[in-house]
């Protein structure tokens, strides 16, 4: 387990370094003069003449070899100095951190809802495998896969905001404004989670140790509570982490439709406006968080199923 821990942490660091290096190179591989682009993210005032550019470039160390510049950039980044946004002329960190907070709360609410909904659905479907209830649950949740966010979101707005006037149609001011975007985001995870829970529980039900548990005197309910459901839910932990990581940057459609100032929206704006420092800051934060979450999920999986994790005892 310890070696696994060390190995995983090493891969995590390597992944973050590799992706951040790619991000660091953005000003060099996009069209235009990289020195001017970098200066613009470092200096508040406007710079026009070449001699000032040269002087500033030298004082910023832009003549140094790329790896040296990268390390300096990374050091600044992790001490909270992500540079200035090309568009708003304010520090990138001041935009990225609130946006991250908003997206995190949106994703947590959406995925939390998805888990709360899909657990009972998946377990019920599995316990009534092949029956009418199972078919109903499976058909309905599977149909969610075919409902893209750009179709579902306007539909929900049309019904709940415009027709019924129950919920705000956009913005991020009250808890009520979270309902429609979270519902939109939750729908597809619900369908994946439900089928994962259903499959996991069915596998657990058919395991050889279930009749053995009944033969020890456990009632059917006790067997299901202690031996079927906990074992059946193990695969969900991995799936949850994959979705969590994916939605951090992948909630862009929902954020744009509902005008939510989250990470997706921020990256979208940064790309549209060629705001390189903003895009750099956003991408590195999202990638770092995503890698950390999947690594955590791997640890969790090893703790939940000791056979995979080797000797914990």
């Amino acid at each position: 387990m310890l070696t696994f821990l060390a190995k995983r942490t090493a891969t995590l660091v390597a992944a973050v370094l590799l992706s951040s290096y790619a991000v660091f190179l953005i000003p060099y591989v996009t069209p235009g003069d990289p020195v001017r682009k970098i200066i613009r993210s470092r200096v508040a005032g406007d710079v026009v003449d070449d001699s000032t550019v040269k002087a500033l470039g030298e004082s910023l160390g832009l003549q140094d070899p790329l790896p040296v510049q990268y390390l300096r950039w990374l050091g600044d980044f992790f001490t909270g100095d992500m540079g200035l946004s090309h568009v708003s002329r304010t520090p990138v960190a001041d935009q990225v951190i609130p946006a991250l907070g908003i997206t995190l709360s949106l994703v947590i609410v959406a995925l939390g809802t998805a888990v709360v909904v899909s657990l009972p659905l998946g377990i019920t479907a599995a316990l009534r495998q092949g029956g009418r209830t199972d078919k109903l649950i499976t058909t309905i949740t599977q149909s969610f896969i075919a409902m893209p966010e750009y179709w579902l979101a306007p539909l929900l707005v049309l019904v709940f905001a415009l027709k019924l006037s129950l919920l705000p149609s956009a913005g991020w001011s009250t808890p009520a404004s979270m309902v429609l975007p979270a519902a939109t985001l939750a729908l597809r995870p619900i369908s994946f989670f439900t089928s994962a829970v259903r499959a996991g529980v069915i596998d657990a039900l058919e395991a050889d140790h279930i009749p053995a548990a009944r033969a020890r005197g456990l009632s059917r309910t006790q067997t299901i509570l202690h031996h079927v459901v906990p074992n059946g839910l193990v695969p969900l932990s991995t799936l949850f982490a994959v979705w969590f990581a994916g939605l951090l940057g992948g909630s862009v459609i929902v954020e744009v439709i509902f005008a939510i100032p989250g990470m997706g929206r921020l990256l979208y704006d940064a790309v549209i406006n060629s705001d390189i420092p903003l895009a750099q800051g956003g991408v590195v934060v999202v990638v770092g968080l995503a890698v950390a979450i999947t690594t955590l999920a791997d640890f969790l999986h090893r703790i939940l199923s000791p056979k995979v994790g080797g000797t914990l005892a």
Partner: protein
Amino acid sequence: MPELVIEDLSVGGPGRTVLSGVSLTVRPGEFVALVGGSGSGKTMTARSVLQLLPPALSVQHGTVRLGTLEITTASETELNSVRGGRLGMLFQQPKKMFNPNRTIRKHLLEPLKLHGGLRGRVAEAKVLELLAEVGFENPDWGARAYPHQLSGGMAQRAMTAMALAGQPEILLADEPTSALDKVLEQQILELLDRERTQRGLGILYITHNLASVAAFADRVLVMQDGKIVESGTTESVLRNPRTGYTRELLEASNLAPSGTLDTAAGQSDVLTLANVCKQFGTGRRRGRPALDDVSLTLKRGEILGVLGQSGSGKSTLARAIVGLETISSGTMARKLSPGAGEAPTAVQMVFQEPHDSFDPRMTLRASLEAPLRRWLDPSERSRRLREAMEDVELDPALLDRRPADCSGGQLQRVTIARALLMEPEVLICDEATSALDALTQRTILDLLQRLNRKRGLSLMVITHDMDVVRHMCQRVAVLFQGRLVELTDTHRFFADPRHPHSQDLVSAAIPCRGLHLKRMRAASA
């Protein structure tokens, strides 16, 4: 203590009958054996006693009584208190019968709480006490272990501890030792027998292994097609079997030396291994070598038995010889007949679990044809397939089935047919009959022997079953912790085993002929 009485029990489902008119009694302190081939209804008898039949089956007629309790009409609540309480059960393949995500301790706490009302420290102390009682040398470790960390024998001991936790009056033991080797089998059965004499536990021992029946059971019931066809004291049934089926079972369990053991086999070597080592893992995870300086030869046309307990390196050896595993050091040389040259296919392997040796989605024909596609046209391929099926005495029509539609015995023949298609000179059988019942095992062993004689095929038979070795092997190699500790002629091995481990193996192997009956042992003791 009450007795378990089954009267005129019939169990079935739509369109099929599994048990018809089964009657039997297990009294306190009695060791009753229920024997029969696979599919004879033994397991279903045990399952109906616990009222844990598969959903498609139900009791159609008859009663099961434990003392005064009518089990067949008892409520679910009454049944829950009887299961694991007054009625304990042991299963085949003990490792699969534990929840892989829970420690042994947690498993044991369940029956202690349900049937003894024990919790907290008292229960924890009882867990350790039970584990010590069933022979865990380190109960603390056993309690903290997860099921996958236990060996098969340890898992069956833990399962026994779990059954004993409920203080059972009757123990249903469904093939508890069939997946274990002879030494472990002996130990587990002795453990059960001790509980019988000390506490007056009644035991219903379900098995297809008559040798162990002879050694432990008071009475024997023989089951065929869901009916009890013969019953009586162990001595009378085993000495004077009245039905042909019992004689067949007895014959199958009784693998006497078959007379082909004259070493007329060729003197030339077909396979030579010198100083072969295999090391798994690197760095700190480097464990004991799986194979440690193993040197042996396989002579042309001989049957060499390779004996060893699980973990002794038998399977690694087999996999290394066919090339499924690289070796860390040492040499392996094949001296094939001139025609075969250096053909990689000249050494073939038959695996233990026939159902796992085929792609479940492919028909057998598709599986068997696959390796022939490169150099044979369709008509030649189907001719070869037909011949191979005839060699293993199977109907070629079977080829169009999928693995799930065949029995284990049929499939194991198909595995052999598949190996024969490659025209091998050496066939490695890795526990090829361990997963099969005694009757089927016998027919497969006969087939292998015939192929050995007819084709001059050299066989390496890897097994933990001493009877198989005695029955058909000219020479025996014993592996112990990755090292070759003995290599000698079979008769010399059984007469005078040299290595201490070999001596353990030989003394645990109870030959059925000669009938080491329990009563006789008691008399001579």
